[in-house]
């Protein structure tokens, strides 16, 4: 266990390091942040002051080394645009993104698994067929379009829900969460649904496929033969066996929802991290871009770790040692 963990940590460290090099070089190639940021009427002295303040007058390898030096001490640099530590800006936005991602994943699991099970057990019922056809829509409709449609219908036409933004927040564990207030929940519904639509379809189809594969197997037949009730068969024998791929997919999707829910966050004016990275790229706010991508790498590493741990809980045959 400890050896496995240490190895994982080492891997993660290597990935993060490689990431910093790629991002540092990549961002440097895109363009000159000073040309983008400095106001039109700045004179040469002002420009030089900004270049020096950002440390852009030093060669790239020096900038990189001093960044690494800071990173070791937990300092990922200062945002050019906000003049605050990049990590702090990211962490400020994180609760908004986390609650949106959690709400979306919760919806996809709570809706996707039962529907998928039903469609897998009764593949020929008209309801199951309708659901499968509907899931194709969930897959294929672009999320920005669905988002705008949701806004048009539920906010503009019916005025049931707000068109965007995050509701009032309340503090929990030192962070600000909006799902703790009623108004906050109302703001959460549309973006979470928008984000969840694709995932619901994904989980549903996955669960259905797995169920169809397992139902004809011998041990299910044995369970039936010994007179076990249908619900017990589903719960004990079927669900546990189909969950491993589901957990893998949900874990990966969770990571990407946190990191790249840019479209939904932009359309719903949700003040999360996804919007932050796009704004930062547009303004070439290098420290923000680098810090953000590092946070995301760490996030993915942690999620994969958790997924592996869940595997062992679901299937006693899986061992953490290689």
């Amino acid at each position, binding site marked *: 266990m400890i050896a496995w963990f240490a190895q994982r940590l080492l891997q993660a460290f290597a990935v993060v390091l490689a990431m910093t090099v790629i991002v540092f070089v990549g961002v440097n190639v895109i363009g*000159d942040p000073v040309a983008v*940021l400095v106001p039109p009427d700045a004179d040469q002295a002002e420009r030089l002051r900004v270049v020096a303040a950002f440390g852009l007058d030093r060669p790239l390898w020096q900038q990189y080394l001093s960044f690494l030096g800071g990173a070791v001490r937990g300092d990922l640099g200062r945002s050019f645009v906000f003049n605050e530590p990049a990590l702090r800006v990211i962490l400020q936005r994180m609760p908004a993104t986390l609650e949106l991602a959690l709400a979306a994943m919760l919806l996809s699991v709570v809706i996707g698994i039962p529907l998928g099970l039903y469609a897998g057990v009764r593949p020929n019922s008209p309801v199951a067929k309708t659901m499968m056809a509907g899931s194709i829509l969930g897959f294929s409709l672009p999320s920005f379009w669905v988002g705008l449609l949701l806004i048009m219908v539920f906010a503009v036409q019916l005025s049931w829900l707000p*068109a965007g933004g995050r509701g009032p927040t309340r503090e929990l564990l030192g962070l600000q969460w909006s799902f703790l207030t009623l108004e906050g929940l109302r703001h959460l519904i549309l973006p979470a649904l928008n984000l969840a639509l694709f995932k619901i379809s994904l989980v549903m189809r996955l669960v259905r496929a797995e169920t169809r594969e397992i139902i004809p197997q011998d041990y299910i037949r044995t369970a039936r033969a010994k007179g076990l009730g249908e619900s017990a068969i589903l719960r004990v024998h079927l669900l546990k066996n189909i969950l491993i791929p589901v957990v893998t997919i949900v874990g990966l999707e969770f990571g990407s929802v946190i990191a790249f829910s840019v479209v939904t966050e932009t359309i719903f004016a949700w*003040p999360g991290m996804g*919007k932050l990275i796009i704004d930062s790229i*547009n303004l070439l706010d290098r420290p923000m871009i680098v810090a953000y991508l590092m946070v995301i790498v760490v996030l993915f590493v942690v999620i994969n770790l958790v997924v592996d741990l869940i595997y062992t809980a679901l299937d006693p045959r899986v061992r953490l040692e290689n």
Partner: protein
Amino acid sequence: MSASLKIWLAATLLTTGLGLAPAQAAPLRIAIGGAFTSIDPHFYNATPNHSVAMHVFDRLVDRAPDVSLKPGLALSWTPVSDTVWEFKLRPGVTWHDGKPFTADDVAFTYQRARNVPNSPGGFGGFLRAVKTVEVVDPLTLRIDTGEPAPNLPRELAFVPIVSRHVGETATTEDYNSGKAAIGTGPYKFVSQTPGDRVEFVRNDAWWGPKQDWDKVTLRMITNSGARVAAVLAGDVDIIDTPPVGDLEKLKADPRVAVATTEGLRVIYLALNSLEPGAATVTGNDGKPLPKNPLLDLKVRQALSIAINREGLADRIMQKTARPTGQWLPAGTYSYAKSVAVPANDPNKAKALLKEAGFPDGFKITLFTPNDRYPNDAATAQAVAQMWTRIGVKTAVETLPWSAYATRGGKQEFGAGLWGWGSPTGEAGYLLSNVLASNNPSKGLGVFNYGRYANPTLDAQIVQALATIDDGKREQLLVGAVETAAREVPIIPLFILDNAWVTRKGIVIDPRRDERTLALDARQAK
């Protein structure tokens, strides 16, 4: 006077007094498209940041929505000599924390504003002319500019005044947390959620007219579709920069009203005037030309009149821009009445090309950003077709702004599409930054992307910028605008309109300078 009459009078006074006193308890919710980055009013010089700062902080000199100057914290300003301005300050003004405002706060501000640590480009430009600030008495200030600085009042209209007692120890983070966000302005800062919103409450002790709103929320919704949805759904009361394509529909919608005004931002084409010119300007065979054709006045004139500006404004911009041959809207200080919109004449353009020695034209690439100005890439494509029609075979290359600005700064473009705002609302700002020969050490021609150079024009610009008398300076500026129209150093296309959408029942005075302020909004009577 009988006792009963006195009582009656007192009662009337009291009730009318009361009738006025209870504030209309209306909150105002604004959504803007730009991203504000800081509450520190001197951290970053960008329109969204100005919009936020102008609620909390006042300026020495204020500007009406049409950018004409009006008294702010200063009641008057007069040149004492060619190089010294005297400002008389407004008496009885207090900071949000109750302390009195004095000339010393202004002196402190002008020193702080240019030295904000880590600022990505702040307010140094507006204060370049300020050499020394002398506090004569608590309500009188003299600013020595070293050399004539006729635009000083216009420039100071950009610099929000902070107090010495709070500001001296305050960092940008203290402003963001609200600790140092103490101004003299019409609204007090309450809180901000970075990347989302700022909240204000009315400052009842403000010196200006009583505000209609007791609370103001300024949200940022960067996606224009989402912004329109928010105002249609009634989530917000005012939005800025609605998408060009939605304007007609919004004008017809009974739930909202649209307010527009001609802005101060011109879209123009810069032509490469170096020798040798850009590699993307070639002969019809793709080989380099012996001489940069863009250096020939006739070629530049041909390229200018080949463009159907009315068509661009009408179709591409869908009536949200107005054709121009200069860069300021009619009626602004230093607008040249003598300079008309260049008439579209493809035949004359062909004749001019022939006279210049290019009967079959040449090849050129028109560069354009695709994420910077409304319909920027579409405009460039239309221009390319118009140029191709007169024989100048034009290819279009679009780039994201972050890459475009960098390459444009290196003179890599033969022709490029740019926008330029004249925040000072006078012609000199563009003249000195865009048309003067590139001379960074003097702060001239810093944004002369084509590196056009014309000593006559330079002399006119320098002379105008050193003339204190407003009337005389306007004449000189108009003269320079006329030279520019004759020599075609840049090809102005159109001036963008600014638009706002409000819920019915709310009126906003559209501002030429693109800012969105609760101060300009009121309830419809």
